[in-house]
Structure formats: C-alpha cells, structure tokens
C-alpha cells in the first residue's frame, strides 16, 4: 500500500483532494462557475468570441413551453435535448431520426412527442441539474461526428477532452462511447478514454472503467495510433476557450463534426482525473512546468507554444 502510494507520488499523479485544494480552489474563482455550469451562457460567450459551437435550435424555460419543442425542431430530422446546467452527461437525449410522429433515440427506441415533453419537463424540474435547481432545456444541433472515429465508437458522439491549465493545454484524451456507457462519452459511465500525444495528436493508451485496455470493448478495434485530424487547430481552440471563462483549471470538451469541423461542446470547471490513467502519466509534472513558465503569454497560439516547448524539451532528454 505505502509502496504504491510512493509510486503514485513519484509518477506525479494528482488525486481528487489535491486537485480540489491545489488547483481548483486557487485557480477557479467560484463566481465564474456560472459561465461554464450553464451551457446556454457558455454558448453565448463562445459565439461572441467567434468560437464554433453546435447550433442552438431553441431554449425552453418553463413547463408550459415544453410542447413548443416540436416547433423548434420542425423540419429537422435529428436534434439533441440537454439540460443547461447538467453534469456528467446526465439528462442528454439524442434524437437521431424521425418516423411518422415518433422520435427515434440514439439506441433505436422510438419516443412519442409526449415522452420527449416529459423528458424536457424533468430537465426543467432540475432532476439532472447540479444541486437539483430548476433548469432550462437546450434543443440543439446533433453533431455528425467525423468518420475517422466510426470504428471506435458505439452510437454516441466521441469527443475530445483537453485539460487547459492557466490557458495552456496540458493533457488530452479522446473519449469514445461504448455500449456500457449507453452512447455517452463520460468515463465514469463506462466510456473509453484514449490518451493523446500532445505533440502529434495520435492516441497512445486507453482506459475503460479505470483499467488499461488496448482494444475497444465493443468492437475489438485497436485504440492506439489513431491520428486525430486537425490536432493543432483543436489545441488552439482549447487554449482560446480559456478566454471565455478565465478558469485556471479548465476542461474543454470538443467534437469533430464531419461537416462543420471542430465545435466546442461544453466547458468544465471540475474536470476529472481519469485523463491521467488514459495517458499513463501523472499531471503534476506538466502542471509544474506550466507554473514555472509564468508569466504566460496572453496570445492563445503562444500558449500552445509553451506546451510544445515543454514536451519537445522532454523528448530531447
């Protein structure tokens, strides 16, 4: 036990207590949480900054308006319903198709309009929101993910999580939905996380349910060596997101849309630590290096450069 703890410390693994007190408490002012916890606010800020996000079809504020969703999605075959202040991917309803009056869910189940309305009402009541507060429902564009991930994701949309520390992308992973995660890309629900080499944007290791794996649990396809298209662009996008909400310890979730390219899905003020398992290394070394590089440049591209410099100097050794 003690030996293992010593090894974890040596590997620079950051634990939850350390994350909360050492990184979130000093770097994430609580008053800024509203900007990232409320996805409507995030979306508004992103649009203002010229960052691409999934198109908003409509917002539902009250139970009375719940049935209005039909009008909002009129003429669209597919859409997503999500709580504005949800956490951990809870309460996201993905409609991939429509048949007569029915809405077809990502898993093939057909829902009536009343069932969709009930889901929206639950969202409004705060069933899925942080702290159970009343919420708003977002109806938005469903991302058509880039075909490069076709072979490694089950139903849902794979996304890319980049951990941005003080504006510098520090670590990243590709999150792939599985049957166990019910098409969602959240690791604690059973999705797969693949570590990404920060310089090349190629996946390295993979983790599922906190354990190292080599192949996708549903398809048996190899998870290492996948090159993520437009990696440099993604890094820059992640670095820019820090300007939307100046949080020092920020998780940026992005998707690669087949038609629209990289979109920012949401920001997270309390990004998890499984990213370390996916990458097979602790965060502390990188975070310390970023601290050492302060004062950090204000231009996002230059901040990505700080990270590149760090990893290149590591390779040189």
């Amino acid at each position, binding site marked *: *036990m003690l030996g*293992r*703890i010593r*090894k*974890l410390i*040596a*590997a*620079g*693994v950051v*634990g*939850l*207590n*350390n994350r909360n*007190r*050492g990184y979130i408490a000093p770097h994430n002012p609580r008053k800024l949480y509203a900007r990232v916890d409320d996805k409507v606010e995030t979306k508004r800020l992103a649009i203002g900054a010229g960052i691409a996000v999934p198109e908003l079809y409509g917002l539902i504020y009250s*139970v009375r308006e719940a049935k209005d969703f039909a009008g909002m999605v009129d003429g669209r075959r597919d859409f997503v319903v999500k709580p504005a202040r949800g956490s951990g991917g*809870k309460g996201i309803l993905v409609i991939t198709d429509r048949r007569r009056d029915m809405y077809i869910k990502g898993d093939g189940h057909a829902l009536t309009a*009343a*069932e969709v*309305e*009930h889901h929206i*009402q*639950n969202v*409004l*009541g*705060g*069933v*899925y929101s942080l702290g159970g507060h009343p919420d708003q429902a977002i109806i938005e564009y469903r991302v058509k993910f880039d075909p490069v991930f076709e072979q490694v994701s089950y139903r849902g949309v794979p996304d890319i999580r980049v951990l941005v520390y003080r504006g510098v992308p520090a670590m990243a992973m590709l999150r792939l939905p599985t049957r166990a995660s019910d098409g969602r890309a959240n690791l604690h*629900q059973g999705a797969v996380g693949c570590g990404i*080499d*920060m*310089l090349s944007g190629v996946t390295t*290791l993979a*983790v599922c349910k*906190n*354990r*190292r794996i080599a192949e996708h649990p549903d398809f048996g396809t190899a998870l290492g060596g996948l090159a993520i298209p437009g990696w440099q662009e993604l890094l820059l996008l992640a670095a820019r997101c820090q300007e939307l909400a100046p949080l020092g310890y920020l998780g940026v979730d992005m998707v690669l849309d087949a038609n629209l390219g990289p979109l920012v899905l949401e920001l997270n003020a309390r990004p998890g*630590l499984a990213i*370390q*398992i996916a990458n*097979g*290394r*602790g965060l502390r*070394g990188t975070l310390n290096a970023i601290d050492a590089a302060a004062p950090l440049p204000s231009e996002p591209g230059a901040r990505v450069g700080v990270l590149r410099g760090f*990893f290149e100097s*590591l*390779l040189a*050794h």
Partner: protein
Amino acid sequence: MKKLHATTLALCLCAAALALAYAKITTLGLPLLPGQLEPVWSIEAKVEFDAARRAAVIDFDIPDRLGDFVRLDEYFISRDYGLNVVTTNRDRRAEWSTRRAQGSQRLYYRIEVVPQTADESADTARARPPKAPAQPIYQEPLASAIQDVLGDVRAESANVFTFVSQTLVKLNAPSPDGNVLVIRDNLDTDSEAWVERLIYVLAGARITARMVRGVMLEDRSANQRLTPWLEIHNGERWAGFDPRTGNRGYPENFLRWSVGSDPVLKLEGGRNANVSFAVSRYAQSLTTVARQRAEANQSWLANTLLFNLPVNTQNLYRVLLMVPLGALVVAFVRTIIGLPTLGTFMPILVAIAFRETELAWGIGLFVLITACGLSLRFYLERLQLLLVPRLASVLTLVILIMLVISLLSSQLGIDKGFSIALFPIVILTMVIEHMSVIWEESGPAAAIKEGTGSLIVAILGYLVMKDEYLTHVMFLFPETLLVLLAVFIVMGRYTGYRLTEVWRFKDIVEDGSARPHS
C-alpha cells in the same frame, strides 16, 4: 503561511479544549469513563435522651468545614421538634426544640460526604493566626514535672511541630519516668480528657493547641463515639497530631465533626443525653457525585456543565453533541477513504434515526422504505409527472409506509414501530429520487452500490454516535467539539490520495508501460 495559520489554529483549539477538560477533571473530579462508581459515606448521628416532661432544647454540633471531604447532602430527622441551624465563624450547630417532650427521645442527623478532589482540599482560610495561650500556673508536683519534660524536649526539637511530636512521644512512652507518670495521672490516652491534658501541658510552652473530634469512616460501623484528636498551630497553619503516639497527621478516613473542647451535645430539659454514630458506605455514579461536589464547591466550572440545563434540553444535547462525530465519520469516509455517499450528510440523519429505532429495525426500515419508494418512483415515471409533485407523492408514500408499519407493529405489540417517527422522511425522499436518477443513468447496480455505501456509512456513524464512552465524554466535556473542529481543519487541508484512488490509479504505475513523461 496558510499552513502555519491552520496548524496554529488547530493546535490552539486542541489546547483550549484540553485545558478546560483538565480543569474539570481535576477540580470537579469528572470521570473520563462512564459507569464509574465512587464511594459515598453516609454518617448518621443518633441523639438520645430522656425527656423530663417539659420543654427541651438540644444543641448539637454538626460538621461545617470538612477538610478532606465534601458534603453532598444532609438530613435532619426529628419529628415534633422545631429545627434551627446556626452557623457561626467557628462552627455550625443544630438546635432542636420542643414545647413538651416525654419519655425516651431520639433525633437523627445524617450527612453524606465524598472525598475532596486534590485541588480544593488545600485549606486557604485562616488569615490570622490565633493568639498563643497564656502560660498556666501549674500546681506542684505537676509544675516541676511539666517543666522537666518540656525542658528536655526543647533541647531536642527544631520547631513547634517537632517539639509537639517529641513531647507526645515522651508522654506516651511505654516505660514512663516519674515526671510522665505525674502528668499522665492515669488518664486513658484514648479519652478526651487526655487531649485536654495535653493542651494544658503544651500551654506551658505557649503552644496553641485545640481538640478536634471526628468520626472514623468505617463501613457498617455502629455505635461509634467521636475520636478526639489534637491540633497544633505553628503560627502559619494547623496540623493534626495523634494524641497517643505523637505522629503527625490524621487517621485515614477521619471526618472532622467538631472543633474545640466545647461539648458536642448540650441538652436542656432532659437527662442521660447520649450521641452515637453509625457509618455506612454506598456506591454512587461518579458523574452524579462529581456534579453534586461541583455544586457544593460552587466552582465556576460547575456552571459549564450541561446538567444545569432543563432535562429536555439535556436530552436534546445528548443527541446533538454526537452529530459532529457522525460528520467526522462521513468526512473521513469521503476525503480519506474516498467512498461516495448519497448526499453529504444524509448518512448522519439516517444514523440519528437508527438511534431511535435500534440498528436491525433501522436497517430494515431503511431498506423497506427505499425499496417501496423506488417502486413508486418508477411507477410514477410512467405517469410523467412534474418533478415537485412527484417528489411530494414519494414523500407522502414514505409517510404512508411508516404509518402502516407503526399500526402493524402496535397490533403485534411491538413498540419499536412507533419510534420510526423520527426517520428523516424528507431526506429519504431525496435519497429515493437520487437513487432513481442513478438507476436510470447508470443502471441498477450503480444505484444499489451507492445506496448500500450510504447505508454502511450510516451504520458506522450510528456505531460511533451510539458509543457509550463517546456519549459520556461528549456530554461531560462538550469542549471536545473544539478538538473535532481542529480535526476538520486539518482534514480539510489534506491533499494526499484517497484510499480508493490508490486502487483507481493503479494502472498508471503498475502496467509496465508506465511512462513518467509524454
């Protein structure tokens, strides 16, 4: 800097709590362990006399300053007699009086005492030393005998106390010389007369002496007489001397009853006055004794005891003071072990409910109510109700289930069912809602796992909060809360791994492919 701040604060809190607890233990004798017993001495004085068919007044010396003992209580048992207790600088006397008494009369006085705790027994009174007695004018042959004895001793002694001691040894010698025999005058060395004689002799050296009488505390002794003892003042303080041996000090378990040579009992209007003492010992809870002792001593610390509160409030605090201990369990489980619970303090509220229902019943009720509530929740899901009315329905159902259980158990004659009233229904409702969301989002296994985890934490919390020893300490020493606060401050600054993380992050360091860099 912040670290130093927090550590200093934690240390200060601990120090303050320990200091207060130490003061309480030493001055009030509060026990650290529950259920400890302390012997309480009960001394009963029986005053008997034959009345002479007229008004009778009995004047009886009762203990005032008890020295090594503390009076817990006293009782006067005297039918048909009026009672008046007179306290003077020197002593305390009970005056019983009656207009007309006939035949043999008996009056009782009972006092209950416990040994004094170390700190308070130091005799702080006696600001002014008493005046030394005038040298008596002795008759011959006593005069020369006393002069010889005192002269011999004076050569061998350094101060008043050794002088007295030497004198007593000489006067009690097994093979006395002529002088000693003259002084002894065939007096019984156990008698009051002998002590009077010693005082008389010592006055020849201008030594202040007095007689004290006391009761020997021996369990189940009856018909005891007062034991006379000699007290000497050396200009600073009084000290006791054995009139038979000259040894300094008092016998063990010597309860000072009266000071001075005045008779203990004075009677008007009767004959054959007699007083005898009976002593018995019984055990009483140390906590009770300490409490009474605190009241008797009128220590300011006594005001800090929760016993001063109304009983209802006391009972409330017996529970409330345990809640932070439950919180300690939750904080420990969550930040050091790293297990999730449904809601931060839900397990504590359930644990408090367990106190009322007892563990097995409590667990059964918790599982039953949660299971029924979850079933209803899934049924209501089909009706597609709005959130708050749905929560209200679950809440109502929870109360209905409890009502049914109470009715059933009263039918069956089990009274446990009634105490479930304290079950935190609102919290249970939230638990049900929370579990059902986890059930839908992550499957039944995850929901049951989290529910069971919370139940286990609740059981742990219950065991801690129910612990007899901890309840005792928290109630007698509420300053322990400061220690808990210190523990929380220290725990709040813990940035090490949670135990579950050691397992969770295992693959980073133990996969063989662990790479410290990129």
